[in-house]
C-alpha cells in the first residue's frame, strides 16, 4: 500500500482506541469514520493518478488547440 503519513497516524489512533477496551459507541464511530476517510482518500488518490496518467497529455493538447491563434487539426497530425 502507498503508505502516507496520514494513514500511519490514523492506524495508530485506531489501534490505541481498540486496546482501550471500552467499546463505547463514540469510539467505535470514530474508528469507523477514520477507516472510511482513509479508504476514501486512498481510492481518490488512485483514481486521480490514473486520470493524470492517461489524461494529462490530451489535456495539454486540448488547451493548446484552443489557444489563440487556433492551429488546425492538420497541423497537429502532420510531421512537417
Amino acid at each position, binding site marked *: 500500500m502507498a503508505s*502516507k503519513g496520514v494513514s500511519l497516524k490514523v492506524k495508530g489512533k485506531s489501534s490505541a482506541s481498540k486496546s482501550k477496551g471500552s467499546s463505547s459507541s463514540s469510539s467505535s464511530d470514530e474508528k469507523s469514520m477514520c477507516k472510511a476517510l482513509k479508504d476514501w482518500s486512498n481510492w481518490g488518490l488512485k483514481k486521480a*493518478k490514473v486520470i493524470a496518467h492517461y489524461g494529462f497529455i490530451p489535456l495539454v493538447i486540448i488547451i493548446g488547440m484552443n489557444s489563440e491563434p487556433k492551429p488546425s487539426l492538420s497541423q497537429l497530425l502532420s510531421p512537417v
Partner: protein
Amino acid sequence: MDAPTAFNATKPTVETKEKVDYFNLPCPIPYEEMHREALISLKPEVFEGMRFDFTKGLNQKFALSHSVFMGPTEIPSQSSETIKIPTAHYEFGANYLDPKLMLFGRVLTDGRVNARVKCDLSDNLTLKANAQLTSEPHMSHCMVNFDYKGKDYRSQFQLGNGALFGANYIQSVTPNLSLGGEVFWAGQHRKSGVGYAARYSTDKMVATGQVASTGIVALSYVQKVSEKCRLRGKIDSNGCVTAFLEERLNMGLNFILSAEVDHRKKDYKFGFGLTVGE
C-alpha cells in the same frame, strides 16, 4: 570652456561607493537554483548513443515534440563491471507556454508519463508540480511546490508522495550575498533533515556553499571568463573526463556531441544527436 568643468563637478568620483540601501535589496535566486552556474558548466546532459529531437511549434504558445533515442542504458550490477542493455525509445511531448501557466508533458513508448505544471496563482504565489507516472504500482512519484516570492526573500513549501514534506527559505542579506535554509521530512523512510546555504555573486563570479544534515557539503565557485561558451569539459576526482559540445548549425538546428570516459571503470560513452526546432 566652463561647461565641461561644471559637468565634471556634478559627476561623483570613482572612489565613493554607492550606499547600500538595505530596504531595497534584489530578490534572491530560488533555493533549488543556488548551484545553477556550477551545474550548467559541470553537469551537461551527457548521453550515450544517438538522439534526435524534433520540436514543431503550432502557435506561439503550443508546441509538440518528437524524440527518438537509441543507445545502451546501464543497469545496476553487483560486480564492478557495468552492464549495458541496448534500448530504443520514442518520446512524444506537448508543451503549452503561457505567461501565467506552463504545461509540459512527455510520454514514452513504455507508458511512462512525465508531467510538469507551473501556474502563477497570483503575482507572488506560484504553484509547481512535477510527476513521473508509470503503469507499475508504487513506482510513480509526484512533487508539488508552493513558492511565495517576497520583496527580498523567497519561501517554498513542498509536498511529495510517500509523505514527503519540505520547506525552504532564502533571503538577500546584501546586494551580493543571500543566505537560506531548508528542512524536510520523509515519512516513508522516517528521515528528516536540515540544511543551510549561502550564495555570493558579483558580475564576474559566483560562489555558493551548501551543507545539509543528510551529509551533503557542496561548495562551488564559477568565474565568468567570456560571454559565449560552447564547449564544456570537466575532470572528476573519480577519474572521469567529460566533454559536451552544442553547436548551432543553422536557425533551429542544433548538433550535440557528448563524450564521457571513465578511466577507473574502463567505461566509455559517446553520443551524438540532432535537435530540430526552437
